């Protein structure tokens, strides 16, 4: 048993004890601080959701703990955040807000990964609706005409789920596209598409899509869609008129099992979208307490209104249990699938890395 030499102010009475108590009693957060590890930069979607949800959950946890936020950055920072969670004490005082990138099969095969996402008990997730691929109006005519110059798609180094749509479009539907990787994120894409430096990108963030539509710059091409219980892809409520890419793909082309699984391996992490989790081996009662607080926070009218202002109306709560199942499915793909997606990315010059 470890003796604890120091305690920070506010924790003296607890003498280093984690959230304990008799079995089945709700954990008590009185006088505690919760560390929220946010696996992204400040001000990004993951960060916004994490901060708002953490603040909301605190209201519904016994003792209303303070939440301290630590951002670990984008890119390698997402992996670092998950690595930190893997080493954290399973005492309910450390949680992580991340996104689908952390559970992507290609991410999980990086040498720097020291976590197994299937071991993180998920608290829950918020899905903002699938990504919408849009293109500058004048570029749409070139999409199916290889005699014209290709439509240019902006890319970061191959980690965005929506890249699967133009990749499969190019590979199987004859799209006339060319990728320029090297952009750093949506802010740069937003500028570049307005300047016709690129012709297309995709996002699920309404605050990016709406201004582009209002300015008359873009046409909405396809959406990623979301599978219903029967496995059929359905449209986002506010984008019902936009064709759903996987449905269109399956109508026009017969994909092999490998090709279809590879597509799903890229797209499915985005269905999890912004998820929150606890460290491995967190006791069940603590997990359930957090899950309950997450659900209550999501349904809190004031918080819901704030989230809608940032992300639009189509926010869906995914339960922690369901997130666990989705992560199992998403991260359990075989090496053949990963190899296929890596080769395809390399073929189109999106990424040179494994």
């Amino acid at each position, binding site marked *: 048993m470890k003796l604890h030499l120091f305690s920070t102010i506010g924790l003296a009475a607890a003498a280093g004890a984690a959230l304990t108590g008799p079995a089945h009693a709700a954990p008590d957060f009185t006088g505690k601080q919760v560390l929220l590890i946010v696996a992204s930069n400040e001000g990004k979607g993951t960060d916004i959701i994490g901060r708002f949800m953490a603040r909301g959950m605190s209201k519904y946890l016994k003792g209303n703990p303070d939440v301290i936020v630590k951002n670990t950055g984008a890119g390698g920072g997402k*992996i670092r955040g998950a690595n930190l969670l893997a080493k954290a004490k399973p005492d309910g005082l450390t949680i992580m807000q991340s996104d689908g990138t952390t559970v992507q099969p290609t991410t999980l095969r990086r040498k720097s990964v020291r976590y197994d996402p299937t071991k993180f008990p998920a608290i829950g997730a918020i899905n903002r609706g699938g990504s919408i691929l849009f293109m500058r109006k004048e570029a749409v005519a070139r999409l199916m005409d290889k005699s014209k110059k290709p439509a240019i798609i902006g890319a970061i180094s191959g980690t965005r789920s929506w890249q699967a749509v133009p990749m499969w479009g190019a590979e199987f539907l004859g799209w006339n596209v060319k990728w320029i990787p090297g952009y750093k994120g949506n802010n740069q894409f937003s500028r570049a598409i307005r300047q016709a430096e690129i012709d297309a990108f995709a996002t699920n963030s309404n605050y990016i899509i709406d201004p582009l539509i209002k300015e008359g710059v873009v046409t909405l091409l396809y959406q990623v869609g979301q599978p219903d219980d029967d496995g059929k892809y359905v449209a986002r409520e506010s984008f019902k008129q936009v064709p759903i890419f996987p449905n269109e793909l399956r109508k026009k082309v017969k994909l092999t099992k490998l090709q279809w699984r590879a597509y799903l391996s890229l797209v499915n992490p985005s269905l999890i979208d912004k998820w929150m989790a606890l460290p491995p081996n967190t006791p069940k009662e603590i997990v359930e307490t957090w899950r309950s607080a997450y659900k209550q926070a999501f349904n809190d009218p004031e918080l819901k209104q704030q989230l809608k202002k940032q992300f639009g109306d189509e926010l869906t709560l995914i339960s922690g249990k369901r997130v666990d199942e989705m992560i199992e499915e998403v991260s359990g793909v075989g090496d053949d699938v990963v190899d296929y997606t890596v080769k395809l990315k390399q073929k189109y010059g999106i990424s040179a890395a494994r």
Partner: protein
Amino acid sequence: MLDALGVAITEMSKPWPMTLMLMGILGSSIFAALPGIGVLLLITIVLPFAVTLDPYPAIALMLGIGAVSNTANTFPSVLIAVPGSAGSQATIVDGFPMAQKGEAKRAFGAAFAASAIGGIFGALVLLGSLPILKPLVLSFGSPEFLVLVLWGLAAVGVLSGNAPLKGLLAALLGLLVSSIGMDNKTGIERFAFGGDYLADGISLVLVGLGLFAVPEMIALSVRRTSVSETSDLGHGTWQGIKDVFENWWLVIRCSVVGVWVGFLPGLGASVADWFAYAHAVQTEKNNENFGKGDVRGVIAPESSNNSKEGGALIPTIAFGIPGSTSLALMLIVFIAVGITPGSAMLTDQLSYTMAMIWVLVIANLIAAALAILAAAPFASLSLMPFYVIVPMTLVLCVSSSYASHLIWYDLITFLVFSTIGYFLKLFDWPRPPFLVAVVLGSQFEQYLWLSNARYGWTWLLQPGVLVILAIVVVTLIWPMISRHRQGKSIRGEKPEPLSRGLQIGDIIFLTLLMVVFAIAASHAMAWVVRAALVVYFIAGVGILIGIIQVVLNLRALRSPETAPPSDPTRTVLEIRRTIEIAAWLIALAGGVYLIGFHITMAAFPFIYVRVYGGGFRPALLLSFIAEIFVIGVFDLLLAVLWPTPFLFELIGIGYFI
């Protein structure tokens, strides 16, 4: 527009927005003065409260914080050569030497007056550009960004002073450092060696602290004097303010530089001050004193780093594209309270835009006034003995290094850059080119790639590119022609030659550098060419220039005029004291690793002060202050997750809950 301005002023003059603005200004000033902490933290702290406000109070609070985030960060830059934030690094180059000459008050007066004027200028530019906001932002694409970054990199030549080859080598080393991390065009993690630590690159905080703060503290502890080499600090504050008005044209030009840099999303605070400084060195008459305590070397960066805030609001308002992380967080608040970036900000929400401009103006005036009031007490710190300044600065540096990302390796990285910074200073290498290259290197590579991938080489012929290139060429070439006509050397006075011993040390340093370049290039052979090209360029050019410099050094060794013998007594004393302070620094880092921050940060100043002749009470007081600082800032405010110290782990004792 006038109606909207009237509404904005009326609303912002109400007690609640005024109170929030004042609180924001005060908070920003305090946080900005704490190196490594910064205003971003303050923004994240107030965010949950700010989203509950009405629009005008939210603007008052958030812009009260943001508008003046580069005012008070001058204090540590001038006093202890520790950059208060990325936006105050260039101020050190002349600000710290001014403090050494007993002119800290003058430096502060000049800095704060320049900051106020620069900030107001930025606000006025924002006001003036409202009708053309959108076409203005859209006129800058990747090629235009590239040329601007090139302009910044060209400043390396200016910042190299009388050592152009060494300046270029320092810049190449900085470019190499900037290449560490994820390459966005290929996904390859360059020089990450399979770990996640280096996958995101090197933190600028660590580079700035190591390059400037530690070498200056080493120099101070070798000299064994206070920062100020004279005990008379004079009445410099008002002189500094007068200096700003006497150099009004420099202030205007540098404010323009700041607005442009702020307006371009992604270039940011860490660049504006260097661009402005380089511009000042290049264009001002009698520039031989830059780097030695020339007040213009403080005025230039301080004008620009406040004016950039007005510039940064332009893309934020026009398109909702924030130019910095701070603005990204502010955007969250603005959206939450009902302010919609985009066309509405120029039409039915114009009064909110006007409110932002109003706060920019008023906040800069108030912050400057507050800072000027604090100038005298802060300036008196430059009279403190070295055994007060050195340990407290090192405590601050080590704490800030860890606190920025909570990673042990950051301490090692900090020590590495401290070592590099020390040797660069020792062998008279200019350090600003290194830092400028670290800041701009990755952007240069990114925009060069994007421009070529998108346009081929035709980007060179785009109108925007040609216009900017013309401006850049004029600002670089014209001063050279002008100086040549006056019969002055382009590079100013020749510096004192290095002693023989240091020349030999310089040769060894150069050789090591070339070995590093060669190893980097060989490592890069495992990558695709797209990712490796920049490293090949750095290594090829670096080794070539390195050889030339070695040859020049060898030639200098032949003559006692160009390589005078050193005073052996003085040399031995300096070496001994340098080894001592290096040992102290290693002991400090080692102490936090072995027994933790809290014990080490309390013990270190106490022991240091007592060893070098300070009394028991001052030693205890400093120890107490250091401990309160660590607990107050890092425990309570930042809630840093301290790692379990090694010895605690060994014995099996937990450290913190």
